[in-house]
């Protein structure tokens, strides 16, 4: 349970901090050229897809675990 909470916190922190950190390191200068904008767009896009699949996968795993628990209890 604690590990899961930690994992969620780390993921949330990554999502919130990564784009900002890239900007702070000069990855996204204030006056962006086209290339800079593209890179920034890719980062955000991949994070968005990662979040979506992490959440869907999390839901599936959660359903599977609950199903296993209930089936086990019904067998007893």
């Amino acid at each position, binding site marked *: 349970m604690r590990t899961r909470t930690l994992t969620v916190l780390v993921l949330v922190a990554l*999502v919130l901090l990564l784009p900002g950190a890239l900007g702070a390191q000069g990855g996204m200068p204030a006056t962006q050229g086209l290339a800079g904008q593209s890179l920034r767009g890719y980062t955000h896009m991949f994070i968005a897809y990662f979040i979506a699949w992490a959440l869907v996968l999390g839901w599936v795993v959660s359903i599977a675990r609950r199903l296993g628990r209930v089936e086990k209890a019904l067998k007893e």
Partner: protein
Amino acid sequence: MSRKIRWTGAALGFLGITGTLVLHWMVFFWVPTERTMGVVQRIFYIHVPSAWVAFMAFGVVAVCGAVYLWLKDDRLDAAGVAAAEGGMIFTTIVLLTGPLWGRVAWGTWWTWEPRLTLTLLLWFIYLGYFLVRASTDNPQRGKRFAAVVGIVGALDIPLIHVSVQFFRSLHPAPVVLKPEGPSLDPGMLATLFVGLGSFTLLFFGFFLFRYGVERMKEGLIHRELTGGSFPGTEGAAS
């Protein structure tokens, strides 16, 4: 869980995953890049289908809630819970992917404009749905309260849809559901429809499994209370 629910759920889930793989191929290798926003606009192909599935799921919650209040059939309550859980997952996706897109397109993660605010409100209303269920000692009362929250919450959905038309908003206006027809590039429209279809299939596949789990949990509680069997849980252990 009955074999029928299990197999239907697995088939829908498999079709949904296949559709999603096709969607990813289209998003990353096929669909044209939007001219002004660039690649970040590709978030659109998961953001909009997630919103569609979330609204549909909360619609299911409302319908199941209304009929539950009338018939008091626990199967409707189980369907409502399963749909509400899926709706929360997909609304969370909408609320997290939107700011990532907005940061690049608008220059800000979040703004308290009507559509975003109402979507956040929707998330909190359905969080309340689960809190209300868990807050009473009497399960039947909890189910009734939750059904009412589910119905009231769904009233927010049409408001979210029309908010960009009636209020000043940063959020783009609808590009598909509008009187003069879709204004998207045909390739983008095709990708969007693949996304809508595959997310819908995924949702219903997982919804069926979640419904089965809820029914089995109720069966377990019933068995503990009465020591007898419970209709709908035959073959659960097989």
